[in-house]
């Protein structure tokens, strides 16, 4: 970089931008041939919009009780009906998207970098460090994640933060293994050897030359993980260990709606549909991203 003057730097930026746009267009072309993937992207986008603009989208306040309107079936006024306190379920689902998005992004932001660092250090260092780190990774991988999350949440006290920490603690190993596998491929390539020859330090090699190469596959893996994270978070919520009432957490909504299931099915069914659609969407997006981004993965 130091050798380049500002003009060529500018040109480089321009050509990067052009390449980026071309890349995006190429992705869009591939994406438009995958109707299911497109559907997944649309749902995820919708979810994010709901989470960000919840106060403007939701027709009612999600926390205000109106006992006169309790347990009303779905209608034009209440699209998904009302719950036992007369709260509009549709509005609660929209606000609940915030909790879901928050959980998923928080876990991914913890697990992604953590798994990446453990994986590349392990793959790059090799030898004893590698075998110790990977042994530890395998051990955590063989833990029953929901049960362990449950024990963590029980010990630390129920709440959204605990749920996020508990889920993160058990979901980094898959990322670490992937990052290690990628590092093993990348570390012997010519450009890394070249960088090493002109004196790049190990940490520079790791974070500037190797880590970026691992990012695409890790992003794909994280997206696929998100479906699982949503289900685990909802399970913890269902057990009363996630976000606490009156927060409109989808799993907790099913848990409280269960009591009215026989006469008022919508109270428990609606949040379940929300969880199912969201988790399905992340699965579809993950599958599609893998097909598009990873040329080595032949679609099977």
């Amino acid at each position: 970089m130091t050798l380049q003057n500002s003009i060529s730097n500018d040109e480089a930026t321009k050509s990067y931008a052009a390449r980026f746009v071309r890349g995006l267009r190429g992705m869009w072309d591939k994406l438009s041939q995958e109707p299911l993937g497109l559907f997944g992207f649309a749902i995820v986008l919708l979810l994010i919009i709901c989470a960000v603009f919840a106060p403007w989208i939701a027709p009612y306040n999600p926390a205000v009780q109106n006992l006169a309107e309790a347990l009303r079936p779905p209608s034009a006024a209440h699209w998904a009906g009302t719950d036992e306190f007369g709260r509009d379920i549709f509005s609660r689902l929209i606000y609940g998207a915030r909790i879901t998005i928050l959980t998923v992004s928080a876990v991914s932001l913890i697990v992604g970098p953590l798994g990446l660092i453990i994986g590349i250090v392990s793959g790059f260092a090799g030898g004893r460090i590698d075998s110790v780190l990977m042994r530890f990774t395998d051990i955590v991988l063989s833990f029953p994640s929901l049960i362990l999350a449950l024990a963590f949440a029980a010990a630390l006290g129920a709440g959204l933060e605990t749920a996020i920490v508990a889920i993160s603690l058990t979901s980094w190993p898959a990322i670490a293994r992937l990052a290690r596998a990628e590092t093993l491929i990348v570390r012997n390539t010519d450009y890394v050897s070249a960088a090493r020859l002109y004196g790049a330090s190990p940490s520079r090699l790791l974070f500037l030359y190797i880590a970026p190469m691992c990012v695409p596959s890790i992003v794909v893996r994280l997206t696929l993980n998100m479906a699982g994270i949503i289900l685990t978070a909802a399970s913890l919520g269902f057990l009363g260990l996630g976000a606490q009432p009156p927060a409109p957490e989808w799993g907790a909504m099913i848990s409280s709606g269960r009591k009215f299931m026989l006469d008022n099915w919508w109270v428990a069914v609606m949040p379940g549909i929300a969880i199912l659609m969201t988790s399905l969407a992340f699965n579809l997006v993950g599958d599609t991203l893998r097909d598009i981004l990873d040329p080595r993965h032949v679609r099977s």
Partner: protein
Amino acid sequence: MKEFTLLEIIRRLGQLLISLFVLLIVTFTIGRVLPTDPVGAIVGELADPAAYTAMRQKLGLDLPIYEQFFIYLNSLLHGDLGVAVLTGNAVTKDLAQAFPATLELATLAVIISTVLGVPLGMIAAFFRDTWIDKVARVISLVGHSIPVFWFGVVGLVIFYAGLSWVGGPGRVDTYLEGLVEPRTGLLLIDSLLVGDTETFWNAASHIILPACILAYSAMAYITRMTRSFTLEQLNQDYVIAARAKGASSLQILTGHLLPNIAVQLVTVLAISYGTLLEGAVVTEIVFSWPGIGQYMTNALMIGDMNAILAGTLIIGFIFMILNFISDLAYLLLDPRTREVTP
């Protein structure tokens, strides 16, 4: 070559022991090094300080942490996991009572998911990219995405409350409860052993819905894996040879492909079994199933760490054993994983 395999088994056994040790450290950490107050939970918040200190000493909480761990380990090796606050029984006794119910549910679920998932995966691969394959893909995608506890609630409402096709929550109807003397603890087998067909059919009608619902999520995984294993094999020479020889599709699938993917399937099934035991925890709550999941959740409500940790330990232990068995199966059954020694 024999020696090599034996050495490998010993090495894996060592790894298993290390894993179990780490699991112990983790459960110990969760139980001891955390903000909840185990002494307060037993003596109550308003207990007088002398009683508090006495209980603290009785629990060994005044000792240094490594000594506490040693004591924990020692009592564990003597089969003592502490007393459950909820029942007043030894946790091990409670777990021994609850475990068969979970085992029965998970085992039936693994049978159902295998019987349905393996053929579906093979057929999907065989008819790749046709509508059959697409249907199989959608089935497994939904299975990957559905929240089990919600599916259980919906299933109960439709098949129990609505159609009355199956028995409701619990292992049997209340009027039959406790009539069969538990021998194995597996109600389906116990009732057959004493020839009580009424209890057997009643229990069967109760277990079928939770087992099917639990099986569905595992089936999604099994189908997906079977499909990709089969696809790898389909273009192999031996399949083409079999076809040239005039073998029918069914013969190729069952006689040639199945044996070749069997070893990989064992691994998948072992993992599924573990996942099912875990999934049983949430399913049990929906179906009031008196297993480990129900027990742990009840313990959760009152913050009974002894019971929670013991449950975690048991399920973690089984999980690791299953992993170990699947590794071993790979090593012993698949000649391709053996290295030829010169």
